[in-house]
Every structure is written in structure tokens, then in C-alpha cells.
């Protein structure tokens, strides 16, 4: 494939001169932004309304006070949301750490060495993406049960750290850009391959690791099917299953539900404000080159 240098994002190439088209494009973009933000904004304001206030003021008026926190207390106490956050955080931290360790290990072994069956192993990883995991869930369920991992945190962790092809792909790309001279000069100093992996490869890969860790963490935080299927026990609720259980408990009291929805959205919204560049870069690199 031809290597083409990436253009600066701010460079103009389309040269839209037609004023009507320009106006139409702006209207479309602004409309898009409104469609994105309005629902979240409304959820945010009604989360601070009491039942009575919600009944009389409706959806669009600002709440009397942003200090009315009963709905949030309700979600945390009745909805066991803190337990959900605790379990989800545990899953995220352990799974992301393990998956990054395994992913960099695979990429180092494949990216730096030639060996028999290397092609076969790469094909095995690639081919697994053809199997849609949603369809095999019925059988995966029997595997998890067979390993006695049903209703444990370990089951989902194993499912989360299993081969992540996009991650391996991005890591391989990154490793191929680390100059081999670095490895060679370390070998002159007598460093072992393991030492090279920990003291040269890993530090050099930091940007890719950060991006992949964020994307993986987001996937786990937002996942529904794994906790629903493999950890239905109420003490193992995650953020996602806690909000599902909470919604079943209460009859469309939307101001209370809004507090739950908003509480679930806040952590990723905050992450997005700080890590937006990494997330966008991770997504566009993974798919364009992939």
C-alpha cells in the first residue's frame, strides 16, 4: 500500500463556495449537535426535580435547585449503584491490565521474532474475528459453567482478556516502528529478551497502550451481555446490570430514573473530556489501517 502522509486536520480541501451549501452544512452540523446534547441535557435537569416538582414543571424547565439530591441518593441506596461501580471498577482494572500485558506479549513475540507456525498463529487470531461472539454465546455459556466460573468475577475477566485482534493489530503496527537498533544495542550490553521487552518495548509503546487501555476500559464499562449472562447474582451487579435492575423496580418515575441514567453516564463523559484525542485516534487508526 502507498504510504501517504496524513494531512493536517485543519487543512481545507473541499472548498465549499456555494453559500446555500455552506449554510445547509452548518445547519446540519448544528442540528446534529442539538440532537446529541438535548436528551442528555433534559436527563440532567430532571434528575434534580422532586416527584411533585417534576409533575408540575415538566421536562424543559430548570429545576428549582441543583442541590436537591434525593433522586441520586435513591439510586445509590435502592439501586445499589455504588456496588455496581465497585464491581465494574474491579473488572475494568483487572481486565485492562491483563489484556494489555497479554496483548503486548503477543505483539512482541510476533513482531520481533521469526519462527515456525508464525503464519498459522496469526491466521488463527485473524480467523477468530469471523466467528460472531453473539451467536456462540450459548456455547460459551456452557464453557464458563463447565469451568465453574458462573456467577464469579473471574468468568467475565477471562472473556474480556481473550484475544483482542484490533489491539494486537495496533500494537504490531507500533512495534514495527520501534527501531530494531534499540534492541541490538541493548543486546550488546547483554540485556535478555525479557529485559528488552520490559525496558525498551513497553516504554516505547506507551501511547498505543494508553489508547488501547482507554478503549478496552470503555468497552467493559459499557458492556451488558457479559454481566447479564455470566454474573446474574445481585452481589455481582455491575453499573449496567444495576441500572437494569433499578429500572425494573420502579414504575417510570422518570426524574428518579434520570438520576440513575445520568450517574451512569458521568464517568465516561468526564473521561471523554480529558482523553478525547486518544479515543478518536484509537478508533480511526484501528479501522482505517485494519
Amino acid at each position, binding site marked *: 500500500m502507498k504510504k501517504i502522509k496524513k494531512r493536517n486536520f485543519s487543512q481545507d480541501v*473541499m472548498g465549499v463556495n456555494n453559500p446555500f451549501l455552506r449554510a445547509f452544512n452548518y445547519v446540519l452540523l448544528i442540528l446534529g449537535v442539538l440532537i*446529541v446534547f438535548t436528551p442528555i441535557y433534559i436527563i440532567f435537569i430532571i434528575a434534580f426535580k422532586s416527584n411533585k416538582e417534576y409533575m408540575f414543571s415538566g421536562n424543559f424547565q430548570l429545576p428549582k435547585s441543583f442541590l436537591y439530591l434525593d433522586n441520586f441518593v435513591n439510586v445509590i441506596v435502592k439501586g445499589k449503584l455504588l456496588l455496581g461501580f465497585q464491581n465494574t471498577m474491579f473488572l475494568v482494572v483487572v481486565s485492562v491490565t491483563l489484556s494489555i500485558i497479554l496483548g503486548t506479549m503477543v505483539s512482541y513475540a510476533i513482531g520481533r521474532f521469526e519462527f515456525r507456525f508464525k503464519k498459522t498463529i496469526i491466521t488463527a487470531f485473524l480467523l477468530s474475528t469471523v466467528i460472531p461472539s453473539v451467536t456462540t*454465546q450459548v456455547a460459551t455459556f456452557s464453557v464458563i459453567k463447565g469451568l465453574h466460573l458462573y456467577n464469579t468475577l473471574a468468568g467475565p475477566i477471562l472473556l474480556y482478556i481473550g484475544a483482542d485482534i484490533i489491539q494486537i493489530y495496533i500494537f504490531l503496527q507500533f512495534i514495527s516502528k520501534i527501531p530494531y537498533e534499540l534492541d541490538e544495542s541493548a543486546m550488546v550490553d547483554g540485556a535478555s529478551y*525479557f529485559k528488552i521487552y520490559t525496558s525498551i518495548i513497553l516504554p516505547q509503546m506507551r501511547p498505543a497502550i494508553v489508547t488501547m487501555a482507554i478503549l478496552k476500559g470503555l468497552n467493559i464499562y459499557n458492556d451488558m451481555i457479559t454481566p447479564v449472562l455470566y454474573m446474574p447474582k445481585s452481589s455481582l451487579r455491575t453499573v449496567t446490570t444495576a441500572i437494569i435492575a433499578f429500572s425494573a423496580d420502579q414504575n417510570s418515575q422518570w426524574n428518579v430514573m434520570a438520576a440513575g441514567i445520568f450517574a451512569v453516564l458521568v464517568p465516561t463523559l468526564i473521561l471523554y473530556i480529558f482523553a478525547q484525542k486518544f479515543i478518536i485516534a484509537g478508533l480511526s487508526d484501528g479501522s482505517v489501517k485494519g
Partner: protein
Amino acid sequence: MSYKKQKTMIIVIFLFIPLILLATFSYFPALRLIQFSFTDWDGLGGSLHYIGFKNYIEALTTPKLWLTFQNNLAYIGVAIIQTFLGLYLAIIVNSKIKGKNFFRASLFMPYILNGVAIAFMFSFFYDYTNGPINIVLRYLTHGKFAIRFLSENYSTNISLGMIGMWRYTGGAMVIFIGALQSVSTDFFEAAELDGANFWHKVRYIIVPNLKIIIQLNLFLAVNGGLQAFFEPFVLTKGGPAGRTDTFVTSTYYTAFQFSNFGKASSMGVLLMIIIILVLVIQRFALRGRED
């Protein structure tokens, strides 16, 4: 230790666990799925009896299966529209426009939000009596017009599919922006000299250069539509009376509610075959046009 020995150790140790995981949680379940599909297993540890193609025949001959596929079509349709909308947004965000970073960041934002929370948010927005959309519609039409988003009609599937559109259009846009940025500026400059307008550039530069990535995204859209699960599972439970069941929700209920793992497995295998067929057809179409 010699480097040769070290190399062997690194390869074996570094690949061992990932390969075990790959075998256990990817390939083994796929094989088991095929095995289960020929049995009457109930998923509860009872014994397996091989019953030949009975599950497949049963799955393919019940009209229910075809109804669920019709429901999936709504998701596929919405996902295809969403792909082209994402492409158009990418093109204009990539053109001379003020605040492009703001637009990119804002439109992409839903992609990172918790899908279940968003589904509940939409079930509130879709509410017939108290939902904000209908309140606005009634206000504008003096109470004459409101929409039953979640009813017993087919359109409910479209309402559910639109939740995916809200979540993923920005994702498609970001992927297309990345692809657009690797198209050489020379093309655009040459086109500019030839007096090409916006549409000429879209048609003769962007579409041909992005052909592969557009096709990939369309494949992902069809694939996602075939595997639609999330929204009906959270909001309608496939109801009323299975009118919003998708292929995957009905597989799920067959296995986990009706303890018919054998039949559910055969449905899983069928879906796998369909997805691989779509992939092959898409590859074939891609190669055919390359000549």
C-alpha cells in the same frame, strides 16, 4: 542463557496463555455450538441426544424465524443510512468550516456512552404521554399529533434502530474522517484547478478513494443489523408478542428462557452462516469491481 534459547522461551511463554484463551473462548465454543445444534440439550446438564437436523428444520420452518428477520431488516436499513450520514458529516467536518474540532468531538460523543443508560434515556424520550418529543409535537400541532414510538407496529423496530443511529453515526464519521485525511491533497488541488465543485470532488475523488472503507463500513452495518440485540432486549423484551424480536433476542430466549439450547445453537449456527455469506458476497463484489 544464549539468545537462541531465550528466543524459544519468549515465543512459548508469551504466546501460551493467549493461544489457550483463543482456543477456549473462541474456537471451542464455535465447535460446541455446532455439536449442540444436532442435539436436544436443555442446557441444564441433562444428557445429550443426537437428533440429526431436527433443530434446523424446526427453526427454518417456523414462520417466527422469518418474522424476526423482517425485524432485523429495520436495523440494517437504519444502519446503512447511518453509514452514509456519517460519511457526509465527515466530508463537511473535513471541509472549511468553523469549529470543526467542536463538531467532531460533539458528534462522536454518544459513541462512548453506556448503551443501557442510553436505551433507558430513549424509552423516556419515546414515551407517548410524557416523553419530551411528543410534548413538543403536541405543542406545535395544538395537541393533534403525537407519535407512538414503541407500539405494536413494525415501526417500533425503526424506533429501536434509531437509538443505534444516535449512538454510532459519530463513530462512522470519525472513521471516515481518518480515511479522508489519508487521501492526498494533490487530488483536491488538481480538481480545484479543473474547476471542480463540491459534488464533483465527492463523486470523483472521495468515493473512489474511500471505496474500500465505505464497503467495510457497509458490511459492518449489515452485520450489526443482523446481530441487533441490545435495544429490544433492554426496552421491549422482544414484545409485544414477539413483534420486536430480532434473530438474536429470539435465540437468547430460546436458550435461556425455554431451555432449548439445542434449537438455540442451530439458530446461532444459521446466523453464523449468514454472516459469513454476507462477508463472502461483499469480498466477491469488491474483487469483481476492482477489475
